[in-house]
């Protein structure tokens, strides 16, 4: 290597410089996030609050407007917002928390709440925020060992989204509130012959643990985990589920495996609902604005189908939490209080984080809601009537669902049988839940 000639070494050096530049370019976020928000730490009046959330463009825009409004009303309080999609959000938050540099206010999800609360990462919110107008059932989902660590900011039922425009055009009516899984599968089979090649009536739910959970709930077999944190996947129900979809796959009513696994949620090109490849799939109420904003007026929400009983449940769409290491806990609490209780803020936010949790705010908003918001509210009211209790999974449950879905993918590619898949699911549970 010593004997490389000078012009060779020179060009190597030039390439290295480019590599280094590229590396620096991608890293230049780090120093700014390492900046400690030390300014105004001792001053109650002025502070720069760091706030992070995940979501779609509609949510980003609305939230930024609320931040501006708050700054206008409270001169001295400014914000350093940071927002992203769901997946990368948690990677970044974990890194920041490890460096004791977590943002002051954190949008939190039920799947990760226990991880953070159990590890003393969140500040106690038992006082300082007015939660009198919140549904106590929902509020309890923000508690860890009886202490309030997170404020739910939207109620979020799980259900079905369908391409209303296309389905109505074919002459099918909207699903009623008491429709069953069998009716859903039959509807899909009826739609399929009317579709052109390369389009499918229904998404292949074998790869969606959360949808399977709705099915299992509707069979009266409970959620995927018991309230005390044990695995609760019913083998017979799982095998039935796999069989139904194997048939639908063979009939061409759900897409082939390679299409099902290449879906990227919310991506206008790669989301199977948005690119028109499937007409029916699952949706949380809070997902709905993301569909609606891409193609207004096209989609409709339907309640989770039932079998022997209802399959739906309502979970907190998301929470606000405050980092235990924040220098501005009091100011952050004030902002969260404003966020959930202020009417002006509610006007801007609408239902971008699910249906507001405060009954006062909901009553205030109801007459002003647009069609998209009404669709979400409709799903809430339909689900509320006979909702299953929502089970926060044990620590590690979020990871388990990811593994569950990977096992489902192996089933639809015919790499393993549903029986083997069940064994693998049990193994993953043992590895993931701690």
């Amino acid at each position: 290597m010593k004997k490389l000639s000078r012009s060779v070494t020179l060009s190597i050096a030039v390439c290295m410089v480019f590599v280094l530049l590229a590396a620096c370019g991608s890293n230049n976020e780090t120093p700014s996030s390492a900046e400690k928000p030390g300014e105004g730490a001792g001053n109650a009046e002025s502070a720069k609050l760091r706030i992070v959330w995940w979501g779609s463009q509609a949510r980003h825009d609305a939230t930024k407007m609320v931040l501006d409004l708050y700054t206008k009303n409270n001169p001295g309080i400014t914000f350093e917002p940071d927002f992203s999609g769901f997946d990368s959000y948690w990677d970044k938050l974990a890194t920041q928390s490890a460096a004791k540099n977590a943002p002051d206010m954190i949008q939190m999800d039920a799947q990760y709440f226990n991880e953070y609360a159990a590890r003393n990462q969140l500040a106690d919110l038992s006082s300082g925020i007015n939660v009198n107008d919140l549904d106590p059932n929902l509020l309890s989902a923000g508690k860890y060992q009886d202490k309030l660590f997170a404020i739910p900011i939207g109620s979020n039922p799980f259900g079905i989204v369908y391409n209303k425009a296309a389905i109505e055009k074919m002459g099918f009516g909207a699903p009623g509130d008491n429709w069953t899984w069998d009716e859903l599968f039959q509807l899909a089979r009826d739609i399929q012959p009317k579709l052109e090649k390369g389009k499918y009536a229904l998404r292949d739910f074998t790869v969606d643990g959360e949808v399977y959970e709705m099915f299992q709930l509707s069979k009266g077999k409970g959620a995927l985990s018991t309230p005390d944190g044990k695995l609760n996947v019913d083998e017979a129900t799982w095998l039935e589920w796999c069989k139904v979809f194997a048939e639908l796959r063979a009939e061409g009513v759900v897409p082939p495996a390679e299409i099902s696994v290449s879906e990227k949620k919310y991506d206008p090109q790669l989301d199977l609902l948005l690119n028109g490849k499937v007409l029916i799939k699952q949706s949380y109420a809070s997902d709905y604005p993301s569909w609606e904003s891409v193609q207004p007026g096209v989609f409709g929400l339907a309640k989770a189908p039932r079998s022997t009983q209802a399959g739906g449940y309502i979970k907190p769409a998301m929470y606000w939490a405050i980092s235990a290491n924040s220098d501005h806990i009091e100011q952050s609490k004030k902002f969260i209080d404003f966020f959930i209780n202020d009417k002006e803020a509610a006007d801007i936010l609408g239902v971008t984080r699910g249906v507001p949790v405060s009954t006062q705010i909901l009553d205030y908003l109801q007459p002003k809601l647009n069609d998209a918001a009404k669709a979400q509210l409709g799903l809430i009211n339909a689900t509320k009537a006979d909702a299953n209790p929502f089970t926060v999974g044990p620590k590690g449950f979020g990871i388990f669902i990811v593994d569950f879905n990977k096992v489902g993918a192996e089933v639809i590619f015919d790499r393993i049988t549903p029986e083997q898949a069940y064994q693998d699911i049990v193994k993953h549970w043992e590895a993931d839940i701690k």
Partner: protein
Amino acid sequence: MGKQINSAYSLPADHPPDAAGSRKLKAGRRWESPLAGYLFISPWLLGFFLFTFWPMIQSAYFSFTEYSLLEAPKWIGLDNFNKILNEDRLFYKSLGVTLWFVFISVPLKLMTALLVAVLLNRKLRGMHIYRTLIYFPSLVGTSVAIAILWSNMLGTDGFVNKLLSYAGIEGKSWIGSPDTALGTLILLAMWQFGASMVIFLAGLKQISGELYEAASVDGASRIRQFRTITIPLLSPVILFNLVLQTIAAFQMFTQAFVITKGGPINSTYMFALYLYEKAFGRLEMGYASAMAWILLLIIGAVTALIFFSSRYWVFYATDGGKSK
């Protein structure tokens, strides 16, 4: 990597101050203590100790601990290594995927780079423009934006399938099928041949034209000239590129993360991606650190193997024409 730059620039200083290098000698006398030299490389040294050496020491420590990022690390001895080697199916799966990727993508990429370098080594008008254009993809190739672009182009309705449909071929989801996803990523890696290509090009320019003239006078064909002149004289450069690209390929991450997310069904689950998910998705930083050290050992072993083999195929003209 920095080491290479370093040794490249310190080459003159290594030479004994003989009479022939009189100009260099004068320059050498001006700084008699090595302090100036260290000062010149201090920015690099600083970077190395702060951002490479220190994190390495830390990760070595973490690899013997259970560390969730959110809590303080807890010493568990060799448990992580034990678990990785004896129980972790995914470790072997991801290692297998990565080895396939390395063994196929690196030779393909180097061959492409060499081929393009040979084509660009001609005297044509506007050659500078061609060189710049062809090098360009390597500058942007690893970026996330390009990866997203590829994932759209290679989807079922993507640009690639549209092109194929004009040719009457029915496409498929290239990144959605476990049979083609890894191959697709390998082809994408080939596209970033530019850095190797530039180094090859510089190497080609070093080969004296007289050799080719003599060979053509003797009636050797172009292909024969390439085999018996170009390849042997270029072999030190090939070795360099091979080592560099192999190390880079073992750490392949961006495309697997952005385009396929390791899927479908783990068919593109690269080692670096598994490591990343362990560390930041599953908050098992200790385990991930242990994996990183195992990867370092594997890369070290493969690199050593390449260097060992080099004595049989690398030819240094300055050794008096004898292959070692």
